[in-house]
């Protein structure tokens, strides 16, 4: 029997399973699970409640920023300023609260700072045509310097009348003994995943990363969306900064130093493509998880901490290698 045109059109080429097996994120999840199983048997300390609590909490700061970075990377951009923005937001929060203001005012000031930095980056990139790498490299330097100016390069560890509230916000575990930062991460991941998959805004972000010129021609508000993604990225850094301040109980001016590279590594390991057009919220979390599990396991297995960089770098290359192999096969 001949196959009609309608049948051909209605056909789904890829089943759910085949799509899952061809996704980089899936294989990274497998790697994380295998590593966890191996570590549970190889060491006594891994599968303890205390260690798992630590791991999940440590994942969050990189993961929250990676969620914001995912938006930027999908549009084909990059944000190198997130580590410094985290530091500046923390410092604004700390200094405001230290001066006697309430936690609400502190958070508001901190978020406002992050958003204005994001807007500044975005406007330079979208309206003046600066390369994202250069703009955010400049901001990496500017934001950290401003944090030093704001605090006169001192450590702030007294947060005024709402001191305890702030520490509870970042260090507490209000639901089922899960660390608060982990809860924030899950909520933000759900929001990110929803936005990317189900909103017009999310669709347009992918379109810009796929073919910016086409997006412009079909009436997508490319410039406004670009400004928005850099604001989201900075906002994520700001939120991570607030949570981390509450958790650490002190802010120094080298907070978040070099964090941008960990964040970018997490998104890339999780399957985002630096060329744009590809990325998921789940991938960002999984990427951050793999990095943290590697870090944690080296300590538990008694391997010298200096080897950390080798393993994390290796994970980045391995994750992208999988992707390359798939592409080679497709091109054959």
């Amino acid at each position, binding site marked *: 029997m001949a196959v009609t045109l309608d049948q051909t059109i209605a056909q*789904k080429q890829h089943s759910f399973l085949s799509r899952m097996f061809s996704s980089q994120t899936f294989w990274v999840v497998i790697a994380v699970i295998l590593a966890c199983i191996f570590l549970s048997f190889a060491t006594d300390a891994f599968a303890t409640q205390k260690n798992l609590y630590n791991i999940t909490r440590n994942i969050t700061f990189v993961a929250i920023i990676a969620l914001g970075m995912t938006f930027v990377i999908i549009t084909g951009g990059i944000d190198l300023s997130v580590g410094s923005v985290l530091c500046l937001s923390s410092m604004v929060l700390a200094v405001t609260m230290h001066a006697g203001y309430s936690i609400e005012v502190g958070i508001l000031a901190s978020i406002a700072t992050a958003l204005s930095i994001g807007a500044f980056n975005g406007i330079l990139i979208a309206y003046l045509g600066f390369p994202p790498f250069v703009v955010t490299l400049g901001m990496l330097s500017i934001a950290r310097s401003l944090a030093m100016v704001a605090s006169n390069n001192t450590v702030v560890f007294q947060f005024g009348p709402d001191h305890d509230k702030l520490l509870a916000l970042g260090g507490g575990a209000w639901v089922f003994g899960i660390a608060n930062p982990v809860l924030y991460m899950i909520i933000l991941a759900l929001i990110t995943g929803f936005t990317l998959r189900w909103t017009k805004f999310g*669709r347009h972000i*992918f379109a810009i990363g*796929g073919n910016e010129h*086409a997006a412009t021609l079909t009436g997508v508000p490319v410039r406004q969306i670009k400004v928005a993604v850099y604001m989201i990225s900075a906002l994520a850094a700001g939120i991570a900064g607030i949570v981390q301040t509450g958790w650490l109980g002190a802010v120094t001016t080298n907070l978040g130093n070099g964090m941008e590279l960990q964040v970018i590594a997490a998104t890339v390991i999780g399957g985002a493509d630096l060329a744009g057009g590809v990325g998921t919220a789940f991938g960002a979390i999984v990427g951050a998880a793999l990095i943290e599990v590697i870090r944690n396991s080296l300590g538990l297995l008694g391997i010298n901490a200096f080897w950390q960089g080798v393993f994390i770098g290796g994970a980045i290359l391995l994750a992208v290698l999988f992707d390359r192999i798939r592409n080679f096969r497709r091109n054959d």
Partner: protein
Amino acid sequence: MAVLELTNISKHFGAIQAVNDVSLSIEPGQVVGLMGDNGAGKSTLVKMIAGNFRPSHGDMRLEGKELILHKPSEARQHGIEIVHQDLALCNNLTAAANVYLGRELRRGVGPFRILDYAAMYKRAGQLFAQLKSETRPRDLVKQMSGGQRQAVAIARTMLSQAKIVLMDEPTAAISVRQVAEVLNLIRHLRDQGIAVVLISHRMPDVFDVADRVIVMRRGRKVADKRIASSSPEEVTGLITGAIEQVV
């Protein structure tokens, strides 16, 4: 009645006269081949119809009503669609997502509205069926052939009630078999009463599919006649200037 009527349209950029006193009218369901050498003014003319440029002189009428366009989106609202030479497709999105790019369907209430995947897949599938193209709405454009990519770009023009579709060199960079596919797509548009303006360098395509041919040279319209009463030799002569003008 003519769907589009241009009267004494001119466009100059500073001292350069790109389009000079061109008048033409296009009937519904007609395929018009617009030919001419590089710099003859075809692109400028089409860009005025598409809302990219405003004419310096003359006026345009759409179904008898005066047409003034400030930007491309206004042309689209009036039912004038354009298929760009590079097709303006995003490789990382599905065929349906590309068809609906910039005018996604959503469901829900007020500000809580989410993308309506099911409706977009369904409608895109119907459009491909209308175009008799074996294109699956769920497939990524990345994996598609040149003909399928054309079908996606053309399906985009059929979302709203298009009156005129402007096609910029749709057969310039694809294989022979795919050219036949694209010419078929053009015929399907025509059969639905849509007027098609086909800008092309390729003589065989224009003579294959068009009802009329308009030739431009150095900003002027030098010929406007039925395909049946013309010949490739005559059109070549008109394009190069060997034949001055035919009426």
